[in-house]
């Protein structure tokens, strides 16, 4: 579904990704982990075609650079790290923006567009907020709306950049359950940059560890969440505790 071959990318003169290669199959659930500045968000930007790179990025068999923006947006949705609080839209109008690539230039939304928006807002439990303006909402509510906007486009791939950072425990779990359900039932490919290693081990069967723009490890949580690898990536001593009853691995920094 997504194939990255020898990707290197830079902001001005600072290289942020060094020769990263990665293949993500259709319907896969993958978490990108690593410290701040490891290149997680940059890698997501390369996949969306926003950050120019050396190497090739193929999404659903097409080179991302040659894909027309509307086709790319119908194929791939992005949930950003944060939604600005000053966006002057109601929740419904905001989620409808997720249909931008499908809407005609003139004329209103079709019944299918309305249905997609309602379906996405119902799934994310935001339908009751539909008339409320975004500036009056909490960070968590805006984050759920961002996911609803991504779902409204009915994409085959969803890229998420730290989407759980503003969510409380319950909504964090609900978002993860929703993502795993979409992945299981609709074969939606999910690639998520995540800081919470325990959460990553709990919900993602495959993790990719990045450090200083390089791929350090790629495998199951038990293969990636090893003290030696994590200490090399985070430059801090860690303890790793398997939690079989929670189907997770707890990673704690050592004091």
């Amino acid at each position, binding site marked *: 579904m997504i194939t990255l071959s020898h990707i290197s990318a830079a902001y001005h003169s600072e290289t942020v990704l060094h020769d990263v290669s990665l293949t993500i199959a259709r319907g896969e659930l993958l978490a990108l982990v690593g410290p701040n500045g490891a290149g997680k968000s940059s890698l997501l930007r390369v996949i969306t075609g926003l950050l120019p790179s050396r190497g090739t990025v193929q999404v659903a068999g097409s080179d991302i650079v040659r894909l027309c923006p509307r086709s790319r947006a119908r194929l791939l949705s992005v949930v*950003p790290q944060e939604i*600005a609080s000053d966006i*002057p839209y109601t929740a419904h*109008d905001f989620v409808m*923006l997720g249909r*931008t690539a499908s809407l005609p230039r003139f004329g209103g939304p079709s019944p299918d567009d309305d249905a997609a928006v309602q379906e996405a807002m119902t799934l994310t439990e935001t339908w009751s907020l539909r008339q409320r303006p975004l500036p009056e909402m909490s960070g968590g509510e805006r984050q759920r709306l961002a996911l609803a906007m991504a779902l409204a486009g009915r994409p085959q791939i969803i890229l998420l950049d730290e989407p759980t950072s503003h969510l409380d425990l319950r909504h964090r779990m609900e978002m993860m359950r929703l993502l795993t359900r979409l992945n299981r039932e609709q074969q939606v490919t999910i690639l998520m940059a995540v800081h919470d290693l325990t959460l990553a081990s709990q919900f993602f069967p495959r993790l990719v560890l990045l450090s200083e723009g390089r791929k350090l490890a790629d495998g199951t949580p038990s293969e990636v969440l090893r003290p030696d690898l994590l200490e090399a990536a985070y430059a801090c001593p860690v303890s790793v505790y398997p939690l079989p009853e929670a189907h997770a691995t707890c990673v704690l920094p050592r004091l």
Partner: protein
Amino acid sequence: MLTTRHILYLLIPIPFALALCLLAGSSGFGLPDTATATGRALLELRLSRLVTGFVVGAALSCSGCALQAVLRNALAEPYVLGVSSGGSLGAALVIATGLSALTPLALPAGAFVCAALTLLLVCLLASRTSGYSPNTLILTGVVAGSMLSSVLMLLLSFAKTRAVHSITWWLLGNLQATSWPLIAGVAALIALAIAVLCFEARTLNALLLGHEAAHNLGVRTRFAVPCILAAATLAAASAVAVSGIIGFVGLIVPHALRRITGANHRTLLPCAALVGGAFLVLCDTLARTLAAPHEIPVGVITSLTGGPFFLYLLTRKGKLPLA
């Protein structure tokens, strides 16, 4: 939020307000006697000012709406990218060199060309450094505007007294367009610019979330952003060419309307064109009649009415819905 039908009801009074403005003048209220040459000339003068005011007001309002969205800045207005300073310098050069005495088209042409060149320079500089990032665009526009204003001051310090008076009067802003072909030409350019902005209404809606989010939603930002900037500035530069610098219209009309119609540019832009046009015609009518026979510069009226209203909007909810 109001429905489309409610918004249409709000727009119905506009033609009646325009008709009232046509009837009001420094010589009194009522239609001039068209049986006399003086009456016909007076009617034509009022009509040309009404049309110029409407077209300029529509241009400034739509330009303000688009720039506030594309630059994601509540204080963005049609002159933020240095268009006013460029236009002023162009007009001042034409007046100071005596070209304005040769043909009435020289002044608007000079203002328009310099305004357009300023935008081109700002866009080129901003795209080289950060690919049209809003902050870079605004900062480049402010710096370019300051530099051009300094050149204008230098020019004023060397200009003859009569030229200084003409330049100052032009800078205050007025709607005394003298020829119908000029008004028609400017109206055509402004109509083209507003049509482009309306065509890009969905793009503007997405750009309110930021350039990166708009890219992810399927907007070809590298093409759409310069296209919108060009259209917004074409509207502003055309307005500057015919009327000089008239402030506040492009700032307060979009903000006031967003509270009524919402931020969807498919509704906001046509409403801004109609309301902005009517607002400037109303201000011009006040400028013509308040201290008759003396005429107050229309820019003074827009600032004195728009400023307090803008402050009211600002203090009512603590902040504007875009910042």
